Every structure is written in structure tokens, then in C-alpha cells.
């Protein structure tokens, strides 16, 4: 259990891995905006987004199949959305049975949009460790200090949560085993029975979490913790040339898509055929 890596982080020493987490988060957001900007049916726009993903993946040294794997978890959602579009769209001309050309295009459009967004998001988590992500979010939230948002406390909570997730997974595993050894059965029975069977796991877990919290608080106090006042920060994030490159690339993507939308508007199957 201990050795299962948490999250989907894929450690490597690449251009993308070395980028500043703040820049990566912003770029990921900008990329998602770009995906949403692609106007209806504009498959060239999607092609541009896809190339962006493929290029980033190549530079990041994350194997392509690892990136594609992330799509697997949402495949049901994608298929469901596509089916809705296929069967419940009355616009356009009927191509086959109740399926119209607009329905077909909408379904393809939805699939492309969801997949591209998931691919982008997973690239972010594959190339950025949870710790870096938390630091990045903290860095981006920093300006909120001016409206009295407790950025430091928020960041500390994130960091401690990340730190304790593996510990609690281990602990849960241990308690489950101990109760199984006493004949507890977590696998059979209906949903209510199973939920009830979890009580002997949840209560010890809760109690131990309180104990851990108490001890952690003592340890933090012992190390002179007194909130964010007069605190310095050891870790310093620096924007570099790499981050600038990333920002330029995503800016280029957005400009390209806006340009395509404006000058190469494509709205029907016939037009797509023409464009190809």
C-alpha cells in the first residue's frame, strides 16, 4: 500500500517538469479556455489543441499511454454525453433513423471537448507533484492576502493534508486487516450492510486522526509555530525562460483559435468535407 504513488504524478526530469507550478497552472487554465473558445464544429481548432497536447507530452517525456490512460476514467461520462447529443437532437437533417447530421456533429464536438480538457488537466498533474501544485496554488492565491484571505493557513492545510494522505491510507489498510482478522466482512451484503460493516474501521480511524492531530499540534507548537506573522518562507518559486515559452505557446494557441473562428467558420458537414 505504501508504495502506491499518490495521484498521477509521473516523475521525470523534463522541460515541463522543471517549469514553475504557478505558470503551469495558469497555462493549463488558458489551454482550457482555448478549448472552450473553439466555436461549434470547428475541428481545425480542436486539431490545434490536440497538437498542443501532443507537443507538450513529447517535451514532458511522459509516455503517451499514461496521458491517454487518464481518459479511461471518464469514458462513461463521455459516452453518455455523446449519446444524449445523438438521440435527443432534433435539429438538422436525418442521416440515419433518429440521428441527424447536427446531432452527429454535436456528439463529436462534445467528445472532442471533454477529452481535450481531461488530457490537458492530466498533463498538469502528471508533470507537477501534489506538493508543487499546492505551492503553485498558494503562489497564485497570494494576492488575495490583500482582502484578508488567510493564504498561509490555507496553504498549510493543503500541505499537511497532502503529507497525511499516505499515512492515513496505510492506517486504514492496517485497521481493515485487523478487523478482517476478527471476522469482519466488507465484501458481502447489500449497501446498508456494507456501510454498517465500515463502522469498526471508521471509528478507530477517526480516533487515531484526532490523536495524530493532537500530536501534530504539539510538534508544531514545539517548533515555534505562531501563525503567519513574521514568518519567512524558504521555498522560493522563480519564473524562468521555460515558463515564458509555455505562456507564449498557449497564447499562440488562443490567438490561432480566435483567428480560425473568425475567418474559417465551419458550420455543417458539407463545409467540413469542403475544408478537408
Amino acid at each position, binding site marked *: 500500500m*505504501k508504495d502506491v504513488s499518490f495521484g498521477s504524478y509521473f516523475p521525470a526530469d523534463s522541460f515541463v517538469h522543471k517549469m514553475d507550478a504557478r505558470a503551469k497552472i495558469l497555462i493549463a487554465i488558458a489551454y482550457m479556455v482555448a478549448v472552450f473558445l473553439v466555436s461549434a464544429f470547428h475541428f481545425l481548432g480542436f486539431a490545434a489543441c490536440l497538437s498542443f497536447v501532443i507537443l507538450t507530452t513529447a517535451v514532458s517525456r511522459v509516455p503517451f499511454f499514461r496521458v491517454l490512460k487518464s481518459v479511461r476514467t471518464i469514458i462513461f461520462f463521455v459516452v453518455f454525453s455523446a449519446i444524449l447529443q445523438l438521440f435527443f437532437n432534433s435539429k438538422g437533417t436525418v442521416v440515419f433513423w433518429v440521428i441527424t447530421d447536427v446531432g452527429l456533429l454535436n456528439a463529436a464536438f462534445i467528445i472532442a471537448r471533454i477529452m481535450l480538457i481531461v488530457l490537458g488537466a492530466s498533463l498538469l498533474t502528471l508533470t507537477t507533484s*501534489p*506538493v508543487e501544485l499546492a505551492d503553485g496554488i498558494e503562489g497564485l492565491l497570494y494576492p488575495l492576502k490583500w482582502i484578508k484571505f488567510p493564504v498561509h493557513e490555507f496553504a*498549510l492545510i493543503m*500541505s*499537511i493534508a*497532502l*503529507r497525511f494522505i*499516505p*499515512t492515513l491510507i496505510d492506517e486504514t489498510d492496517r485497521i481493515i486487516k485487523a478487523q478482517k482478522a476478527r471476522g469482519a466482512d466488507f465484501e458481502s451484503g447489500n449497501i446498508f450492510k456494507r456501510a454498517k460493516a465500515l463502522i469498526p474501521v471508521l471509528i478507530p480511524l477517526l480516533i487515531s486522526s484526532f*490523536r*495524530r492531530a493532537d*500530536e*501534530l499540534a*504539539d*510538534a*508544531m*507548537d*514545539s*517548533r*515555534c*509555530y*505562531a501563525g503567519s506573522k*513574521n*514568518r*519567512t*518562507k*524558504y*521555498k*522560493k518559486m522563480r519564473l524562468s525562460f521555460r515558463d515564458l515559452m509555455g505562456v507564449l505557446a498557449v497564447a499562440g494557441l488562443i490567438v490561432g483559435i480566435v483567428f480560425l473562428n473568425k475567418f474559417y467558420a465551419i458550420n455543417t458537414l458539407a463545409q467540413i468535407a469542403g475544408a478537408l
Partner: protein
Amino acid sequence: MPVLEVKNLSFSYGKSQKAVKNVSFAVEKGEFVAIIGHNGSGKSTLAKLLNGLLKPTSGEVVVDGFSSNDAGAVFEIRKRVGMVFQNPDNQLIASIVEDDIAFGPENLGVPREEIGRRIDDALKAVGMKEFRKATPERLSGGQKQRIAIAGVLALKPQVLVLDESTAMLDPQGRKEIAAVVENLLKSGVSVIAITHYMDEAVKADKVLVLDRGVVALSGTPKEVFANKAALDALGLEQPLAGIIADGLRERGVNIPENIITEEELLGALWK
């Protein structure tokens, strides 16, 4: 002048019976003091009083001139009296070793470059320099506990309190901590170790035995562990070498009374 002085210290949780009663002792620079006692004897309460995690009901702890009764001095005391607890998992706050060690100095507002140097020094002191960027999750219990010690050393304490810090470790981990303690003592840091392991207490300069909040016995390890009757009454045991020596003496073998280590036992047989 002692680095840390405990004067007539008492403490009770709420209105219940006193957990620590009228305890006094002093710790010199570079001195190694062991505190033993059965579970519930008040050892951990005493530990928490030493760095201001608890406020004494009466009496005081004086560290380097700062009194525990001076509310403004609590951070001065905590800076000087570092504390390492039992469960290494519950005292590391960051997912990367250097970030965790930085936590203390960051709290004190130490400038960034200086924090970097302190991380270096602290990791060197616990022999884990190459683990600076490591994730604590992947380390052994002994290594985690050494990181916890490093996190405290980064505050540059004069006294290190180990509150049963070896209780959850395997023999390998305990050896690692013993080696770190030895180094710290050499560099002039005083160590107060609360422990159930008599073979750890044997190495101390001074042993205090706590019972129901009172110092029931104190002295050098030899003095304390030779007193079998008193130890029995307090629910404690002699070190194993002492038990064997006693067994021999009971059967008429004429060997000295204050044997507590293997070497001493062998030495006595060979005189």
C-alpha cells in the same frame, strides 16, 4: 550554570490529582539525563512542561535565564528546548524533507539563505545529508525520526527532549538515534531522554525515576539500577545484565552490586 533548571515544578490537569508534583532537577550543558517510570507516571507531562507546551500550576522551568512563568518568553524557551515525540509520522508536516526542516526557522522569521544553511547543518548532524529532497513516506522509522530531530535542530536548541522517541522504532532505528544523540552530546547539546528502554537509560549521566508525578529515585545509572528493591516497587526492571548479576549473587557468587552493562558483567567475572 545549568542550561535548564526545573524548580519545584507541579502540574495538574484541571482539578484532578497532580500529574507532576514538586519536581526539581538541573541539566548542565552537554549532559545526558534519562527519565524513566511506568506508563502514567507523569513523564510525558513533565516533558511538555519543559518547553512550555503546558503551563506549570506552580514552580518554574528556567532555560538560559528565561522563566516559564513569563508569558512573553515561551518562544525563547521553545527555541532553546527542542522536542521530539514518539510517533515520527505525527510530527513531520511537509512532504519533502527540506521543507519540513525549514518549518521551524521559517516560524522564527530566519532569513532565507540562513534557513538553507541550517537545513544543511541539521541534516549533517543526523547523518542524512543525501535525503534533502526525499519524501518522508519512503523513509524507515529511524530515518523519519532523524528528520524529526533535524527539524528541531534547525532551531539551534541547547536542550533536546526525546519523549519516548525510540518507542516505535526497530533495533536498527534505535541504534541510529543513539548515534545521533552521542554526536549531539559531543557538540554540547544537552539531551533529556524519556524512555522505557533501560539499556538507553544506562548510558545517561543522570537518571530520574518518576512515580505518580514525584521523583522517586535519582542518581547515576549505577546508583539507580543497583537499587533492585526500589525498582521493583516502582514497576521497573533492572537492565538484563543486572538481572543476571543479581542471579549470580543470590547463588553465592561474589560479584559487585552495581553491575548494569554487559561489559561490567564480563569485567567482574574476569578480575
